[in-house]
């Protein structure tokens, strides 16, 4: 691509919801009028100080923001042990795993349920992979007294049993989806089918920065609280910006939330980490590394697909990364070269998971463990005075059964 570098990386999408050639609104006609309504309502909400005040208040007192910025000293030192002389960057974490419900997903759910209420919708649906977004959605529905239906692939229902029970405790109905490979992609298909049949009263809370416009934009904006806080905290603590941001990518919401407020700081490099599963030559979930542009779930983006445009099944040990697509803004950031993307295999993520447990006393989710594994490769190549800031976007309580099984431990 000989695309010209834009003046700013922060003013996408265009008025049609396009990030360069990506994004857009590829939905059945039944949904179009509603999507246009949502866009109007979101534009109005953005300009409404009362909306922002309510959002900020809930994030502070209900979610527990701002989340801490933490210097991971022992993690840093442990990586320096095997680094060349003078090498081994400092590693800092944005601790969104301390949020209410245990991940960044709740930031977005607060924003979207406030939009649903503004639009007078009385029923909420969502899709979920790991169950983190499902739990966050069920949580805000309980908080605001709205009925909640969560679609979840049957495979994920089995491997994320604790989250299924949490959603039920919170009063949500969890519908296991059996079509396809019964994971996140199929849950999203089923949620779209529900939405088409219930547009009059139902709001679809999408869990990542993907889907038809304006979802990628509004999810990014709600998650940008991560990067906005981190930027301020970093300046205050160190008087400088980080050299490298690192985040794991499923659909890309925690990553874009961290990256977006820094996109126009040319000295800040960024690394998005996809899931390489069993390896890029085998089954994986790295749509940028192993996919091609295509159209699915309302947007144009990189997809794992065959030569006929049939969507491939993704694989990752982490249910939250197990999706054959990626948010359209990441597709654009890859093509413009502003953000670098890499991928990490199941085994590497498992090693990083255990390494963080022992060095810092933090049990991370398997999703950010992919970001940690990428840092374990990158930090030893960087100078000691350089700073890496990673999004620790979720805690690992939900994953202990998966990890035990992978390590051959019986519980």
């Amino acid at each position, binding site marked *: 691509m000989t695309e010209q570098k834009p003046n700013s990386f922060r003013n996408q999408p265009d008025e049609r919801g396009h990030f360069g050639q990506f994004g857009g609104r590829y*939905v*059945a006609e039944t949904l179009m009028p509603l999507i246009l309504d949502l866009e109007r309502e979101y534009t109005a909400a953005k300009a409404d100080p009362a909306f922002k005040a309510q959002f900020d208040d809930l994030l502070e007192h209900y979610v527990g923001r701002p989340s801490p910025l933490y210097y991971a000293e022992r993690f840093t030192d442990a990586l320096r042990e095997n680094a060349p002389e003078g090498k081994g960057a400092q590693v800092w974490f944005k601790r969104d795993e301390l949020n209410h419900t245990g991940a960044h997903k709740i930031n977005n759910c607060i924003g979207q349920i406030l939009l649903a209420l503004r639009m007078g919708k009385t029923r909420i649906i969502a899709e979920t992979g790991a169950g983190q977004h499902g739990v966050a959605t069920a949580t805000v529905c309980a908080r605001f007294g709205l009925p909640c239906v969560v679609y979840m692939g049957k495979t994920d229902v089995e491997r994320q049993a604790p989250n299924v029970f949490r959603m039920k405790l919170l009063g949500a109905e969890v519908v296991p989806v059996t079509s396809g490979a019964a994971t996140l992609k199929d849950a999203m298909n089923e949620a779209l089918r529900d939405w088409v*049949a*219930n547009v009059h009263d139902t709001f679809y809370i999408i869990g990542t920065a993907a889907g038809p416009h304006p979802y990628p934009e509004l999810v990014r904006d709600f998650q940008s609280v991560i990067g906005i806080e981190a930027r301020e905290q970093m300046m205050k603590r160190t008087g400088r910006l980080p050299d490298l941001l690192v985040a794991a990518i499923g659909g890309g919401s925690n990553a874009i939330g961290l990256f977006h407020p820094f996109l126009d700081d040319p000295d800040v490099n960024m690394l998005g980490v996809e899931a390489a599963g069993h390896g890029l030559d085998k089954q994986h979930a790295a749509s940028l590394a192993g996919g091609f542009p295509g*159209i699915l779930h309302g947007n144009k983006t990189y997809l794992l*697909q065959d030569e006929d445009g049939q969507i491939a099944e993704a694989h990752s040990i982490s249910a939250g990364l197990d999706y054959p697509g990626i948010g359209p803004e990441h597709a654009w950031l890859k093509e413009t070269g502003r953000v670098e993307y890499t991928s990490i295999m199941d085994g590497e993520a498992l090693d990083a998971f255990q390494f963080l447990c022992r060095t810092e006393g933090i049990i991370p989710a398997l999703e950010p463990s992919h970001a940690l594994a990428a840092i374990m490769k990158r930090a030893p190549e960087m100078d000691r005075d350089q700073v890496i800031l990673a999004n620790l976007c979720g805690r690992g309580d939900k994953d202990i059964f998966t990890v035990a099984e992978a390590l051959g431990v019986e519980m």
Partner: protein
Amino acid sequence: MTRFSNAFSPDRAALVCFITAGDGDTAANLDALVEGGADVIELGMPFTDPMADGPAIQKANLRSLGAGTKTADVLAHAKAFRERHPDIPLVLMGYANPMVRRGPEWFAEHIADAGVDGVICVDLAPEEDPDLGPALRAKGISPIRLATPTTDGERLPAVLDGSSGFLYYVSVAGITGKQQAAIDSIEDNVARIKRHTDLPVAVGFGVRTAAQAEAIAKVADGVVVGSALVELVGEYGAEAPAQLRDLTASLAEAVHNARK
């Protein structure tokens, strides 16, 4: 005269029949629909993620892909149909990704060569027309758009802009195979749409029986039947053609005579 204008005549409604390509013996199934009296054929292009379809057509998509159906096979089925039936309009219906995978020009050229008359792309909103519409129109293929109960008067012109062949009115806000809408609402909506266009309006989603088809044929230019036919393919496999012929014949009789 195009094949469409022959099929939608002013004095009787047309029967539009849908089956999924590569599900069962496609050639024999298509011939059975024509023998039964179908006026227009919609041939489904299978897709892994048919998110606007209910269980019956989802299963048909998976059966077809499970049997190894490729885009090349869909094109071959279309071409062979055109050779056997020179006058019946043939519409490909499916999702955007398989249609644009090799580029819209590639797709338009190959389906034009196969003798296809129109394309229904379920998840390509008029707002994203540049992805496929210009390539189709350049090859003389009709982009056929969907209007739904949520498509209001303000939006209809955008839906109609650049479309041709006929307009497909989706009578229920929902997925294929679900409950049918009340006939009053269908009549009102078709009348409303016809104030905006001279295109024939065909009504589908949830039509299963001759009685339903007859009621719709009184108020619309065409009646689309899909899930009920696709279910027969799923249930009867190699024996499906006889079943399809019988159901199509009963539907055709009801549709063709509704206004007598």
